[in-house]
């Protein structure tokens, strides 16, 4: 009879029984395993939640601070700067020319930001290299006209209360994709509370489903 068979014969109780017979040394091994498990779990779990988002996104500052609320107060609406052009395209970021309808190379206010704007951009005729929070990939065709004019939508629905902010928050760029964090949303799980929290394809589709009863066809946005 081989050793293996002996063992089998000696130990009719099977695996569970076998474990109990293993003695105190093995028990301690299991305990350590659990501790290692817990430790690794905690480290990874917490870094996944806390560290990972910080690493994933690099922060960039806008060239200078822009006060939306001040401008809305002065001008009265969004459309003066963010207007639809005759050919249907949209002035998402107005060009310098548009700013210069009011601004000159003499700063209008006292702020440092205004001084930067006047000196570095207006005086030199240079466009401000704004970082665009809502920039979508090239494969996305988005018509503001269809949404604002035909759909009668409010800017807030997608952009949130941007008109009420007085400072430009940092632009967070995804190190892998190069896109703005605004597209995926602040919440690292991608969970949203407000319609303006995220700007992914599913968010467009959700709204379309709700409003039009249909998620839309591929070629509506991918042309």
């Amino acid at each position, binding site marked *: 009879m081989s050793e293996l068979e002996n063992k089998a014969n000696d130990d009719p109780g099977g695996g569970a029984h076998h474990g109990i017979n293993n003695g105190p040394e093995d028990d301690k091994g299991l305990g350590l*395993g659990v*501790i290692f498990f817990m430790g*690794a779990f905690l480290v990874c*779990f917490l*870094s*996944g939640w806390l560290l990972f988002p910080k690493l*994933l996104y690099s922060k960039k500052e806008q060239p200078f601070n822009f006060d939306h609320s001040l401008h809305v107060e002065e001008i009265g609406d969004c459309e003066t700067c963010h207007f639809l052009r005759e050919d249907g395209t949209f002035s998402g970021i107005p060009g310098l020319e548009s700013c210069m309808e009011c601004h000159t190379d003499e700063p209008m206010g006292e702020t440092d930001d205004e001084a930067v704007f006047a000196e570095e951009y207006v005086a030199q005729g240079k466009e401000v290299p704004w970082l665009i929070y809502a920039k979508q990939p090239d494969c996305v065709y988005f018509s503001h006209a269809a949404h604002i004019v035909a759909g009668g939508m409010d800017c807030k629905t997608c952009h949130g209360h941007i008109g009420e902010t007085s400072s430009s928050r940092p632009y967070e760029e995804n190190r*892998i994709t190069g896109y703005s964090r605004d597209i995926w949303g602040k919440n690292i*799980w*991608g969970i949203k509370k407000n319609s303006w929290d995220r700007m992914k394809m599913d968010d467009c589709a959700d709204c379309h489903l709700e409003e039009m009863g249909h998620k839309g066809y591929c070629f509506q946005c991918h042309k």
Partner: protein
Amino acid sequence: MKIDRRSFLGLGLGAAAGIALSPVGVKLTDDSSIWTQNWPWTPVPEDGEITYDRSVCSLCPGACGISVRKINGRPVKIEGLDDHPINNGGACLHGIAGLQYLYDPARIKTPLKKNGNKFEKISWDEAISLVAGKLGEIRESGTPESLGLISGADNGSMAQLFRRFMDAFGSPNTYTMPSLESNLALTAAALHSADRSLGFDIDHSDFILSFGAAIIEGWGSPVACIQANASRHERKAKLVQVDYRLSNTANAADKIIAVKPGTEADLALGLCAVLLAKTKIAKDSLSGDVNKLAFSAMLEKEYTSDKVEAITGVKAADVEALAMAFIKAKAPVAVPGKGRGDVGQSLREFAAVQALNALAGRLNKEGGVFVMWPAGYLKFPENVMDDTAEQGAGKAKLAGSVTELVDKLEKDGGLSALFIYNANPCYALNNTEKVKAAMDKVGFKVSFSSFMDETALKSDVILPASIFLERLEDVVSGAGLAKTVVGLCRPMVKPVFDTKHPGDTLILLAQAMGDSIAEGFSWDSYEACLEEVTGDIWDTLSDDGYVVIDDKPPVGTPVTDFTFLSSAPKIDVPMGEGDFTLVPVDKMRLAGGSMISSPFAVKTVSDTVLSGKYSVVEINPATAGALKDGDVAVLKTAMGTVKVKIGLNEGIMAGVIGMPRGLGHTFNNPYVAGKGVNVNDLIGPVIEPGSGLDAAFGIKATLSKA
């Protein structure tokens, strides 16, 4: 403390569980998928100023107006031009893929000269003096008529410029490839008078009786036809399709009349007979027409509905009902030309269908068929002809049609040089082997091609042509449209390669030949020539991009001469033996004639048409025998044997094999060539007496499991 295997396991599992319960996995998956789409070598169109330029698409005879979107001057998209009198904003898939032709791998990038079996690059100067030298020798030997020309379309200034060259050189041997346009011109010449064309006012007709015309697969001016068909429901117009398979057009029709392939002419004559026997209108309409008595006597005797039933398979009662429905409609029109109406057509069939229009009093009526005058907007100065030219050009032509020419060349030669412009006979004519053999009999072939296609490969010298996006040209609508519009094709980009406008090439060549030929071509450039010859309309043409020459029915009713029909011999087609009749099938997604499908178009072809490297042939399950859907089978005709895939299809008549046309190219373009077989390889030409047309709509075939 001893760290053992379990501790490590715990560590790994813990890390995995920790990560799994954190957002890392979800987020990284999403981000990495976006990352891969943004790899730097993925082409991303440049941002920049957007402009739109108008031009005309001349890929097919459609002559659609196009708008080319450019970014920083680089064309990026072709769209149909809104409010254009032909296509009104529409464009077909070949048109929108037009940009792919610019960078096509088969484009000829520089002048080439054949050396043994290889082409070698030469400069334009060398190429022009080489061709001019050869042509000079031919002229000096006193046989200028031995220069031939095979060209595509026969309208516009380029066709006239080539003809002018041939005249000044001294040769009558100019041939055009069969096209719907040329077939309609032949029909008009046989029934009405020479130099006319026929236009079908499908837009305003309320009863369209189509004899197999693939109205939504590329007949005539494809976009215009598709739009005319699309508005049918609104207009309450009926479409009756005479066909032997359920084409897209037949599928969209209100009624399908199933007919045995090749008997369409008999059905049309049967309908004529019913009209003559049963209605007064038709008899009255014969007043003033020529040879009407012999024609009506023939109809009475040979085309009784019973006889027509026996020939065509359409029940006698249906023949009568169809004729009555046709005559009772307010604005009926009968449309000839199976498929795209170009290759494999008989004049007897075209004429029979046109006779039906004549009897029903539909000539020059709104919604009927217009017997149209030539566009006549071009005014070339008088040509300069020396004695050699006068003598040579006065000689008889070698053959009546390009198919007859091929026959003649293959048997006993007759041309010492041949120009090929805008044509690919080695692919587009039936029995391509024979066409290639005929080409071998011509000592010196000069191709003005843009692509290294089957015919260019056979040439001795290639003078590469810029494509429509790189050149200026007047493009005349035709192809069965009931209006005449001249559009201006404009260069959208500088030539991508070292090519020239064929008009400029011809002018250079004429000037290199010197003497009277040079005198007749004394323009600085083709542009100067075009501006001169379009004199009256040039300003409007260059400002608006098109000129509508005529869009009203011509005045008066032309006389119809029935002589050809009352004696038109029936021809014995299809040739060969076998249980099946193989017929080519025109598809919207596959180009025909000299146009080669773009890679984009080929990509859109479904696997019921092209499966892997096999052409899929349609056969009715009732005649399939042991063959199953998707089987690879051997198809054999008197011309050749190929392997195909079987596509069972209840929508094709039993005993008929439908094979897609436009596949099986054999030149160097991995996207288009080597896919399927060229159906023209399998069909032998059958020359129709009296017209010289290749009337082989099909051929007998056998099919067996591979």
